[in-house]
C-alpha cells in the first residue's frame, strides 16, 4: 500500500441532504486520482487538539479532481465538520483503508442502510457493467433515502425501503434483500449500514458471502497504532484500518 499523506483541500460545496446528513465536495486532485472504492479519508475537524483524533469518512464519489463525502452528524466531531464553509480548506488524510475487493460472484446484491448508503455509491460505480447488480436502499424515512438520483443515473433502479413506509417497502431493508438474495444462490452481498443490519444479513444468508463496510473506532487509520481491532471468529483481531473497512463479514464477530 502506498503510504498516505495529509493535504489541505478546498471545499467546493457543502450542503444538507436530509436532517443531519451533509454532502461535502472537496477539490483534492491527489486523492481523486488514487482513491479506490472502499477507501476512506481521515478528516481533521478541529484546528487544535480537541478532539484530538480525525474522523473517518468514506469516499462517496469522485468526479474529476473532486471527492465527495457524505456524512451524518452524530456527535461533536461531525458537528464541527458540518460548520466548515465553502471556500475554506479542510485537512484530509488519505486515501486510507484497503480497496474493496470486487466479489468474484457474477451477481452482486448491494444493501445500504441509512448513512451506509453513502460509501456504496462509489463502489457501485466501479461494479456497474462488471457485475449484475441489484441495489437495495433503506432508511428511516423518504428524506433520509439519500443519493437515489445518483444511483439512478448509473442506470440502476434501487429498490427502496423505509421504516415508516413513506417510500418503498415498509420495514427494514433487510427484508427485501433476504428475499432476493435467497433466490439468487450464487450472489455475493455487499452491505453498509448499522451493525445489527450487517449481523442480520450474515446470519440469515449464511453461507452466502457478505462483504460489508464496518464502522470501527479508529486511532490513526493508517496502520501504525493497532487501536482498530475487529475480532475474528477464529480468535484474535484484524487490524481493521488495514484489512478493512470492507471485510468479509462471515469471518468476523460483529
Amino acid at each position, binding site marked *: 500500500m502506498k*503510504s*498516505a*499523506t*495529509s493535504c489541505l483541500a478546498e471545499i467546493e460545496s457543502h450542503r444538507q441532504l436530509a436532517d443531519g446528513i451533509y454532502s461535502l465536495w472537496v477539490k483534492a486532485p491527489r486523492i481523486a486520482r488514487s482513491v479506490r472504492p472502499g477507501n476512506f479519508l481521515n478528516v*481533521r475537524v478541529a484546528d487544535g*487538539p*480537541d*478532539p*484530538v*483524533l*480525525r474522523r473517518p469518512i468514506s469516499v462517496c464519489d469522485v468526479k474529476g479532481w473532486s471527492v465527495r463525502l457524505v456524512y451524518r452528524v452524530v456527535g461533536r466531531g461531525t458537528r464541527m465538520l458540518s460548520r466548515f464553509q465553502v471556500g475554506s480548506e479542510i485537512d484530509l*488524510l488519505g486515501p486510507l483503508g484497503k480497496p474493496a475487493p470486487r466479489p468474484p460472484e457474477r451477481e452482486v446484491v448491494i444493501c445500504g442502510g441509512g448513512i451506509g448508503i453513502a460509501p456504496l455509491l462509489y463502489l457501485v460505480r466501479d461494479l456497474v457493467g462488471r457485475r449484475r447488480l441489484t441495489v437495495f436502499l433503506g432508511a428511516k424515512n423518504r428524506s433520509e433515502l439519500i443519493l437515489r438520483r445518483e444511483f439512478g443515473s448509473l442506470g440502476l433502479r434501487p429498490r427502496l425501503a423505509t421504516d415508516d413506509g413513506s417510500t418503498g417497502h415498509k420495514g427494514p431493508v433487510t427484508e427485501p434483500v433476504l428475499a432476493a438474495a435467497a433466490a439468487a444462490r450464487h450472489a455475493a452481498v455487499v452491505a453498509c449500514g448499522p451493525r445489527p443490519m450487517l449481523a442480520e444479513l450474515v446470519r440469515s444468508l449464511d453461507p452466502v458471502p457478505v462483504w460489508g463496510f464496518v464502522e*470501527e*473506532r*479508529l*486511532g*490513526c487509520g*493508517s*496502520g*501504525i*497504532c*493497532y*487501536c*482498530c*481491532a*475487529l*475480532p475474528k471468529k477464529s*480468535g*484474535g*483481531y484484524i487490524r481493521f484500518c488495514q484489512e478493512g473497512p470492507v471485510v468479509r463479514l462471515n469471518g468476523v464477530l460483529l
Partner: protein
Amino acid sequence: MTYSVRIGGTTFPNPVLAASGTWGFGLSFRRVSDRLGGIVTKGITLEPRDGNPPPRIHEFPGGIINSVGLENPGLEAFRRQVLPAMDKLKCRVIVNVAGFTPGEYATVVGRLRSRRVDAFELNVSCPNVRTGGGAFGQSPRMVETITKAARSRTNKTLIVKLTANFVDPVDTARAAVNGGADAVTLINTLHGLALGQDGRPFLGGRSGGISGPALRPFALFCVDRVAAKVDVPIIGSGGIMSGQDALDFMNAGACLVQVGTASLVDPDAALRVWLELKQTVPGSRASAWEDIVGRTRRFD
C-alpha cells in the same frame, strides 16, 4: 554544527524519535522514519499477543486513552518476519520490549542480536496489561532487577521507559541507572478510565493509558524533576506536537524526545516536530543542544 545526540553507544542524527506503539515498525511511512533521529518499535513480548478487545481508544479533551494491550507478533515472528523488512530503514531502530517476568525481558533482549537493532527500550510501564508491565514500573526494586537482567544479555544501548503512575520517577530512574541503563524515557502513559453512560467501562481493556497534549505538563514536570536529581540522559515523551513542545522538553532536561499521539493525527508529525525544532536552534555552537538541554534549571 551537529544536531546529533549520543546515548550509550548509539549516535542519533537528530533528537526526535517516533514513540513506541504509535509508529508500528516504522515501515508505513519510510519517508518520515528515515529522516528522524530514530524510531521505537511497537512493544515486543516473548510470546505473541492478541491484545485487548475493542474499543481500544477513547478521546477526552486534549488527549486519548488507549488500551491496545501490547498486541504484537511475539519475539520469533518479529525476528523472522518483521526485522528483515526493517533492514531497508535508514534510521536508528530502538526495539521496545515488554515482559511479564524479568527473565522475559532478558530473553527478548538477548535474542535480538541483529545489527539492525541499535538499542532497546524496556517498557516497564505499560498500564494496559493486568500483570507485569505497569506494576513493575511502580517498584524501584523491580526496575533495577529487570534492567540488570537485560543489561547482562546485551551490549547495545539500553533505555528504560518509566512511568509516573503512583511512583516518583526519581526513584525508578535511580533504579534504572543502578541496573545499568544508558538512559531513561519519561514518561509512559498515565492511567485513565472512561465510562459509558451506564457506568460500564468504555474500553475493552477496562482502563487504559492517557497520552497526548493533556499529558504534557505532567510529563514535562517529571522530566524537569528527574533531570534535577538524577544524572542520566533523559528521553522526553508526553504530548509533544510541535517543535516548541520538543524544545520545552529539552529545556527541561531531555536530550531526545519522542512523538507519539501526534503521529496518529498526522503521520508527518514527528518529522514536522524535528523541522520546527531545528528552526528554533541558533546555529552557533559545536553541538546545537549544548545551550538548550537543561536550560530551565539555570533560571532557578
